[in-house]
């Protein structure tokens, strides 16, 4: 592309069209790949594979469709810091609920328990 020969304002970085199509192709490929791998019995590993593929797709979308590749470092930092807080949220909550899960499982389920199921 001849984008860079053109005199754009400094904040304007149009993405090259062929690159966008290549990224789209890769995304479709990964989508098909994740469906295919989900049909193979991988056990626990299957979940990890699915997440790795999803993260690869997310990377492609972020980097090229969302122009992160050309964006300011601060904006990228802002966006990824959100993931830090999400993981904190998930991590601590999971740690806690995981440790008292047994007490919930031990409790009679709704149908059997004396918990009132009528509206109060």
């Amino acid at each position, binding site marked *: 592309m001849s984008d860079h020969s053109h005199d754009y304002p400094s904040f304007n970085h149009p993405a090259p069209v062929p690159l966008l199509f290549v990224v789209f192709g890769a995304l479709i490929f990964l989508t098909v790949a994740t469906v295919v791998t989900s049909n193979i019995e991988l056990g626990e590993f299957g979940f990890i594979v699915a997440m790795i593929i999803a993260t690869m797709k997310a990377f492609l979308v972020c980097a090229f469709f969302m122009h992160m590749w050309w964006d300011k470092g601060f904006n990228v930092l802002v966006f990824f810091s959100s993931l830090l807080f999400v993981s904190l949220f998930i991590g601590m909550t999971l740690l806690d609920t995981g440790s008292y899960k047994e007490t919930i499982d031990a409790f009679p389920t709704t149908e059997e328990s004396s*918990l009132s199921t009528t509206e109060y």
Partner: protein
Amino acid sequence: MNLHLPLLLQSTNEEIIKRVQESTLSGTKVPQSSIEHQGASSFTQFWDSSYWFPEQASTFAPSVDYLFMWIFWVSTIFFIAIVFSMVYFCVKYRRVGGEINPLPSSSHNNLIEIAWSVGPSVLLVYMFFAGAQGYFDSKIASETSEEIQVTASRWNWVFTYPNGDSSSELHLVNGRPTKLIMQSNDVLHSMYIPAFRQKMDIVPGRYTYAYMVPNKTGQYRLSCTEYCGREHSKMRTLAEVHDTDAHRQENTQWIEEEYYPWKNGERIYKINCSGCHKINGEAATGPALNLLYSMKERPLMDGKVTVDEDYVLESIWYPGKKIVEGYGPVSKMNSFKGKLTQDDVSQVIAYLKYLNNPADVAGGDVESGLRAEGGDKSGTAGTIAPNDKDDDGSDET
């Protein structure tokens, strides 16, 4: 604002005692000791832990009080230092005559900053470890603890003991490690015994546990501290520590020498109904129950109904169907279908009839003798026995 001053003076101890007695009869349980305790502790000095805390009645209490007072002193020293220097600077460096003349002084000093960040943290580390230690002490139950089942529901407590007895106050034996296994029938509750420095939420859908070793006989407050709805503040009862098992049993055992349906009905009433339905003629969330069998017909929101067994059963199983005049338009009551069997309801009905006239039901006259006995006991020991407290206003007073 002056409006409240006379009130402050007005509330003499006697008056409070009188009102406590009244309120005790209307369903709230207050340890007798707390009335006297009030006078004593108000005049204790605030630097003594007994100023801040109710008496210590469990093995955890001393460590909690110790840590509290420790933090109290650390905080007080810091606070006095802060306020003293603030006031001192404000007086010494105050602006006089509108002339602005700050003295030359430094505006940053990393050494000082680090010193006053790191210095106090040492104290914080101690607080954390002492707190954590006390916490784990109160969380780890001894192998030999006695297990008491606690069922909380709006707005009642039921404590069931290993021998199958149950009561609406918690009765413990002095020095015996005890594990409370708690469940809730409806919403969140929290079991709090200030004298034991112990508190634990009761979460519906799972069991939670509280552990304690009482070490002083007496009566203590037990309250719900997790907001649970209308009569949250009435969800108070007693925790009583007895010196021997035998003494406890006197309080937890329901007199079983002769079985009469109405007595079981009374027990069912206390566990399930007493939160909303009074038996002293007062209207609460729901209508009072002692008058029910004195009427032939009861006025409803629309029309009337004949008071009979079918009506009572229907009202308990399907509360929304017939709503008593003045309690509508929608019933606030839970359905007890699935919770109370028809047999249970029959016993409740026997109790309702007993409330109207003891002579109507089998064994109704037995009660008077027992009551006299119970009254004597509570008179001498200064306690309130569970089977003769809030039944009706006409008794004893």
